[in-house]
């Protein structure tokens, strides 16, 4: 069972793509590498969101709340005391997981749009806090982080790629495991899952913690890659929207599709940059067309074609 799952087509294809991606630094420019590095971190954000939406059935409008907590906690700690970078990142992850718990509490009480709103409010609160506590966080100008993991763009690229690969493997494995199945059941019909003797609350809380863990870790790593943190790159609602669109575009309930969607979004946005304001317009229009006409997302389209032939 486990061996068979290890060699299923999606896993094999992902492995081949990962290996190919790992050789990219040999023949593309540093500019493309930098773009892909960011895209890979967004891929992890989207995967972590998909775990909550696609499996726990919780619509989290505040992925950037978790990301921002991770990035800012790590960044502030580094700019204040300069401890080892690993310690900063660990603190960021911890803050993000606490944030995950804070988000999960209303989720266990309220449903649907109400829960979506509390998460949105969490983002707005964090954003306001960052702007008001400007002495600590750099406010609207942003926070400068003195240390970076590496200044070599190839090393940074491989770190991001490896991190995305490992996160994807863990999240994908988790959703295919018995625990993932229980989580899915708790999401779709909490009453029946409870009646079957599963602890719905425990599984949902775990899903929030896992999602927060990866969001916070990716946020902290990305902050150390950029050497700066600002509201616009980590917390703003538009960042969260991009994460959500990435996951829906790639194909919800697939984990792996989220990476595809996020990379696609970043690549499309960047290649249209010469068009200025129109770039965002076109990216949103393309995303809207996919949502309206191919609701299963990019991965779903590929699957559909394969099933049809």
């Amino acid at each position: 069972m486990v061996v068979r799952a290890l060699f299923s087509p999606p896993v094999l294809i992902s492995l081949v793509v990962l290996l190919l991606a790992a050789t990219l630094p040999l023949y593309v420019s540093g500019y493309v590498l930098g773009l892909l590095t960011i895209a890979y971190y967004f891929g992890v954000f989207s995967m972590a969101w998909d775990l909550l939406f696609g499996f726990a059935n919780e619509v989290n409008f505040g992925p950037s709340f978790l990301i921002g907590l991770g990035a800012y906690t790590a960044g502030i700690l580094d700019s204040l005391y300069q401890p080892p970078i690993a310690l900063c990142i660990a603190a960021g992850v911890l803050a993000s997981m606490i944030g995950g718990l804070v988000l999960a509490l209303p989720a266990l009480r309220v449903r649907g749009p109400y829960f979506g709103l509390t998460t949105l409010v969490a983002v707005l609160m964090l954003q306001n806090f960052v702007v008001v506590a400007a002495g600590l966080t750099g406010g609207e100008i942003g926070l400068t982080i003195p240390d970076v993991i590496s200044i070599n763009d190839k090393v940074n690229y491989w770190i991001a790629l490896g991190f995305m690969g490992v996160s994807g493997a863990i999240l994908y494995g988790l959703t295919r495991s018995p625990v993932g199945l229980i989580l899915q059941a708790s999401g779709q019909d909490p009453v029946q899952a409870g009646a079957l003797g599963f602890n719905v609350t425990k599984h949902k809380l775990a899903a929030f913690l896992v999602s927060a863990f990866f969001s916070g870790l990716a946020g902290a790593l990305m902050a150390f890659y950029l050497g700066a943190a600002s509201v616009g790159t980590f917390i703003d609602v538009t960042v969260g929207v991009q994460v959500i669109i990435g996951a829906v575009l790639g194909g919800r309930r697939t984990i792996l599709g989220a990476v595809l969607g996020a990379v696609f979004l970043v690549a499309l946005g960047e290649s249209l940059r010469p068009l200025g304001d129109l770039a965002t317009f076109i990216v949103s229009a393309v995303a809207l067309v996919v949502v309206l006409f191919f609701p299963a997302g990019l991965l779903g389209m590929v699957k559909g074609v394969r099933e049809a032939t």
Partner: protein
Amino acid sequence: MQFWQILIDGFAISSLYALGATGFTLIFGVTGVLNLSHGAIMVAAAVAAWAASGEWGAGSYVAALFGVLVALVLALATYYLIVRRLQLSRAVREEEKEIFILTATLLWGIMIQEAIAYLFTNNAKTVLPIVDGVVRILGVRTPANEIFTAVVCWATIGILWLFVNKTLAGKAVLAASMNPRGVTLVGIELKTVYVGVWAIYGVLAGVAGILLGMFLGVSSYSAGPLTASAFSIVVLGGLGSVSGSLIAAYVVGYLETLTAYLVSPAYRSIPALLLLVAVMYVRPRGLLGRR
């Protein structure tokens, strides 16, 4: 002196919030859709009125009418191109339709916003007020436009109330919000009701957008915050309850004005957010929510 100032300014702002939120809550109450392109439609109306009067030299009434027309067209486009398509879609599972409509209307809102930014730049624009001059109320110098805003807001809400409660078409709308199947059973085409509600929504959002453009000015950046504030007012008041959102609009409007005057304009939106969080924890269905 400052007390009266806060009272008057807060009243005008709150009336505007109330009108903006009324359309939003109407759409949710009747069709069950949370329209995240709300702010963008309001901004589009204001910018259209601004462009008509400033760029193309139309009179201020014609310009306002044009703005409302733009909002009406956009609202109907939202319904026909996006909401209806997703509601009838067979590829999306029933329980997932909500998130799909949310995502799609959000993308649609971003498209409108970016189109405005591209065509008219994202500078702030102030629509030429229909009435100008200053009036003294209780010793406070108040722009006549502020009074005009409050009057138009309440007149519009009043007309809506009369329509819903006193006319047959309005009663069909009310019935559709309570029991869609029952409405179909007595022989009313549900789709006609929905189209009508979206048209009313377009007019409400348009009027609110233009008034906002005269009062505070708008830019394409205001679309997101406008949607967020309508959303939080509606949730605070209770989803689908029009009277709830009217009360909530005043609570939020006065909280913001008080904070802006007494503490600092930078902290303006924080108390309302805190209140919202508190309400979500203590009474998740909002002040006058039905569930």
